[in-house]
């Protein structure tokens, strides 16, 4: 059994807790007792924050739409398609014809990299996320 520190994926309070991991699965949570934010407490969402990651509805493979339907694809196929279509649009209609929505749910590093890709590789500043909503 392992205790892995993490941060609640729900609201902006940023409560921290440990995920209890057994045989490669999360089996429970344990709030961090000394953390100044939550001092050993969690709300109902925090206590139950790991269940959805084990949902059978998780996406497990890249999907490409073919003739209106999703078909499973390899990473290479999916990423090549993303690159060729986005660069194609940029070359034909300019960088401002592309948009990039960051996420208030993913990490800082990931948001940084995403905005770097938009601005440096595509030269588009159409970068935003729904926090303004």
């Amino acid at each position, binding site marked *: 059994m392992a205790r892995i520190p993490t941060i609640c994926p729900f609201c902006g309070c940023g409560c921290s807790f440990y995920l209890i991991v057994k045989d490669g699965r999360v089996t429970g949570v344990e709030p961090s007792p000394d953390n100044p934010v939550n001092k050993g407490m969690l709300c109902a969402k925090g206590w139950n924050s790991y269940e959805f990651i084990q949902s059978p509805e998780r996406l497990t493979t890249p999907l490409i739409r073919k003739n209106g339907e999703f078909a499973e694809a390899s990473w290479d196929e999916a990423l090549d398609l993303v690159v060729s279509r986005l660069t194609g649009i940029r070359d034909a*209609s300019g960088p401002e014809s592309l948009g990039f929505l960051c996420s208030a749910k993913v990490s800082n590093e990931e948001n940084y990299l995403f905005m770097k890709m938009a601005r440096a590789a595509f030269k588009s500043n159409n970068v935003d996320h729904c926090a303004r909503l």
Partner: protein
Amino acid sequence: MTNSINEFDEADLFFVIGSNTTAQHPLIGSRIINAVERGAKLILFDPREIPLAQFATLHLKQTFGTDVALVNGIMNIIIQEDLYDKPYVQARTEGFEELKTMVARYTPKVVEQITGIRSSELYRAAVMYAQADKAMIVYAMGITQHVTGTDNVKTLANLAMLTGHVGRPSTGVNPLRGQNNVQGACDMGGLPGVFTGYQRVNDPATVKKFEDAWGVSGLNPKPGLTITGMMNAAHQGTLKGLYIMGENPLMSDPDLTHVEHALSNLDFLVVQDIFLTETAALADVVLPAAAFAEKQGTYSNTERRVQLAQCAVSPPGQAKADWEIITALCRRLGMKCDYACTEDIMREINALTPSYGGITYERLSSGYGLQWPCPNDTHPGTVFLHRDQFTKGKGSFLPCEFKPAAEIPDDEYDFTLTTGRIYYQYHTGTMSRRVDLLEREAPEPLLEINPEDAKKLGIRSNDVVEVESRRGSMRIKAEVTTRVPKRVLFTTFHFKESQVNRLTNSACDPVAEIPELKGCSVKIRRCS
């Protein structure tokens, strides 16, 4: 937030406006309740009878969309009664005379007409706030999601400066951030006009710095479009390709019919997420991402605290961490991108972002996170902002006139519909609705309606009603309750069965382009 969560424990007074704190930020809500129980005062401004109302010293129910008039009225009383902090105003601020002249027009009588709040109550609120030693203003989306969102925020800042309730422990203006990394997404340049740490894309020296660091030339110096702008551009056909990472605008954004049309009009849509969301279902390519527990990374909470989460388990199937997916794309795009782990990315952020300069994995692994600004390796982080001076030297008062909401109820659309969250669900429901306990506690959407209105319309609890705005309609079960005042309806945006954002208004604040999700005009009838 200008201040920190722990400072709630020492405050004498909370001025809570536009935040249903116990539902959206439960652990901050409980701090407020604990503080009230030890004797702190709570002034609550909310048209609804939210759970915090039971603990409020004073609960004022302003008419929807009248916050600027309300707060101007409070400032006027504070100035008239000579209760403002003169030494503070003199030493640390500028523009007081303009503020004074403008708010003088917001007499208690005028304010009562606009907001519905009685003068005697406005007086009590003004005096209590001004006389408190340590008073914290707390707000959330109830302040920002209005066509006057920017004015609302400026007006609250005026109030805090006028009374010197800023730049000290347990004071300040404290927006509560809704999602776990809203703060971080903004800090990391997830906004049209800025790189990390709010460094502007149109500042030549900044552009040069990023070009050098990234090994590229020709960065675009023109700020880009906001989400609202992008949706409009997609609708018109000028935006042709969109890449959405971990967002679900086809549930969360206003006027969904417009959003749906905009997304369908794109030549190419990529969605990267952990579930096949409503938005992903429209995509041309869907990329499966890892969830929070399946990767390492940092998140910045509402008090600017950056904390490190470790990887606990592997992602399902072929799903990959978002950073791995983007790294693979960047390589294909010919960018130098040799990150072996997220720590490598953080090093790059440290080097390019003064406020994150000292926030390293090494330091984050041992303590309880670091609050930015934290410019170097030995800096302890910053508990509260504006201690000795504001970022720009003196704090300027920015007086704002009251402007009405975009839609005011009329004869046909005679109710105001307002939206929010509930304790047991979260955002568009993709995560919380897949948790049994949460789903058991709050399994279905309900529309709150006042008993008097319900009686007139022949509506009883659990009746199915149809609610319609100028943009769309939905069917939903009614809950007859005094939680909402007359002529106001409330529901949440968590449930795809009743998509309230079919009805909401995409009219925006002209500066921040935040849409008025907090209110639109609707009509309601019972379905036979």
